[in-house]
């Protein structure tokens, strides 16, 4: 598969829980098949414990599958000689920005990755500036990260990954700790990187309004992919989504409730604009 960026081929993952007497195996992934194409923007949703983060950690070889294979742009994550190539190609951003920032000055933090790749200083300079520009944080290059807002810190964390020149970024709930404007900043940055820089994006989130913006939504439950498709397809299955302990976007929910009351409104509404158009049509 030439256009595949991240390929999960029937992967299983067992966590070993060791008690004093017995070794208990708990299965976090139970046969996941998922192909993320180059340039795609996918969102993974699922309740806590459904296996989302475990899957994400497979994409840059923090974890390797117990069974099955994960192929990152042609490289198998089990091949330890490819480990650094894989991590350079697929960067990760986590939930808490404070746990990801290592330096006391923003630009030094962003330079940390490329420094570890052994890149010459003048090239690092260029990469750092470009990365900070891409996340719209160039003005803060000389600031201390602790003085930034959550959204700004998370954008610095993304810049740190960008400076590694990845082709793919996996973000595990990057907006969970942010206020509404911080969430907006981070999501806009992600979308721009996807559209303009053609970086493949895997975004894990509990905010359904973010999922609406993806090319494809993947729903996980109990270590498996149980539903996937365009946001419109996935969220129009309101009852199934709710049964999985998830939510649909508020506008989809509203349309669903109106339909229950015999209003003949489209069931696959995702956004405020669509709802406005539908109500105007019905009036």
């Amino acid at each position, binding site marked *: 598969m030439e256009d595949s960026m991240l390929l999960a081929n029937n992967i299983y993952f067992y966590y070993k829980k060791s008690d004093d007497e017995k070794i208990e195996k708990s299965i976090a992934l139970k046969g996941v098949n998922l192909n993320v194409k180059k340039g795609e923007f996918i969102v993974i949703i699922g309740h806590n414990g459904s296996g989302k983060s475990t899957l994400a950690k497979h994409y840059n070889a923090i974890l390797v599958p117990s069974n099955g294979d994960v192929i990152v742009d042609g490289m198998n994550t089990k091949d330890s000689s490819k480990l650094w190539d894989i991590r350079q190609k697929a960067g990760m951003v986590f939930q808490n920005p404070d746990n990801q920032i290592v330096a006391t000055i923003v630009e030094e933090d962003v330079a940390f990755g490329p420094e570890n790749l052994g890149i010459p200083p003048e090239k690092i300079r260029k990469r750092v500036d470009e990365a900070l520009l891409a996340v719209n944080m160039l003005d803060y290059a000389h600031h201390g990260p602790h003085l930034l807002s959550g959204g700004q810190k998370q954008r610095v964390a993304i810049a740190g990954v960008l400076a590694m020149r990845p082709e793919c970024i996996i973000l595990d709930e990057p907006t969970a700790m942010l*206020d509404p404007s*911080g969430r907006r900043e981070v999501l806009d940055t992600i979308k721009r990187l996807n559209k303009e820089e053609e970086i493949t994006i895997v975004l894990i989130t509990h905010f359904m309004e973010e999922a609406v913006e993806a090319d494809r939504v993947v729903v996980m439950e109990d270590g498996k992919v149980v539903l996937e498709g365009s946001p419109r397809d996935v969220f129009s299955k309101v009852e199934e989504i709710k049964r999985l302990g998830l939510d649909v976007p508020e506008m989809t929910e509203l349309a669903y409730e109106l339909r229950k009351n015999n209003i003949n409104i489209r069931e696959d509404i995702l956004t405020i604009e669509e709802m406005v158009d539908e109500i105007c049509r*019905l*009036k």
Partner: protein
Amino acid sequence: MSIKIENLVYKYMIGTPFEKTAIDDVSLEIKDGEFIGLIGHTGSGKSTLIQQLNGLLKPTSGKIYIDGEDITSKDINLKKIRQKVGLVFQYPEYQLFEETIFKDVAFGPQNLGLSDDEILKRVRRALEIVGIDFEKYKDKSPFDLSGGQRRRIAIAGILAMEPKILILDEPTAGLDPKGRDEILEEIRKLHKEYNNTVILVSHSMEDVAKLVDRLIVMYKGKNILTGTPREVFMEIETLEKIGLAVPQVTYLVRELRKRGINIREDIITVKEAQDEILRLLRRDKND
């Protein structure tokens, strides 16, 4: 139990180049039994404010009265204040430390010097409130549970202190929609049943719209807006300017009104929007 804040100022790193005023002359009053939503963007002073309310931080100047008692005075018994004012931090599950769930939840009451019977009663009640089966879980390690369950245990640890004022700093951050709804429902029930004063810090406008009696909006260390959710969410421009938002349905009715549709503008929940749109569409049919 009531809270009264008078001209509260809090500066940190005083005398250094990083000196910053985190709370800038805030005065407000919270009545006994009120359910308050505290909103504001990251860095607006919300967390700094709530940490003053049980004496974790001492104000640079100003006064705080809890139930009429000035907790900023020098000879205050902070232990007594912390018994009255329970504070659940962000990600409280990271503060679990005991071997069993029972011991963890019992830790606070034990430090109050209560009898074993009373402790047992309180732990049982606290776990019940957060929806954790006492018999099934009391001897389990809190570390064997899921994130959402661990958070509940941590909240139960505060509830077991039976605080008259309960403050929760983003109790649902990082939880999935079901876990979020469950915890919020438990808080709502608790407030309804015991009529204690609750302050909920939240970034979710949808959640506070559904839950609270009154919103307090912080911006740059100041309390710039207060009122019922319905009143506050009418200030769309102000809220957006300070990095906040209004519920999705409030944006929806604004857009509808722009298109000439005569719909109430002060709608803040999906249920209200549903009723109002049904009324609108049916009225047309009957015309």
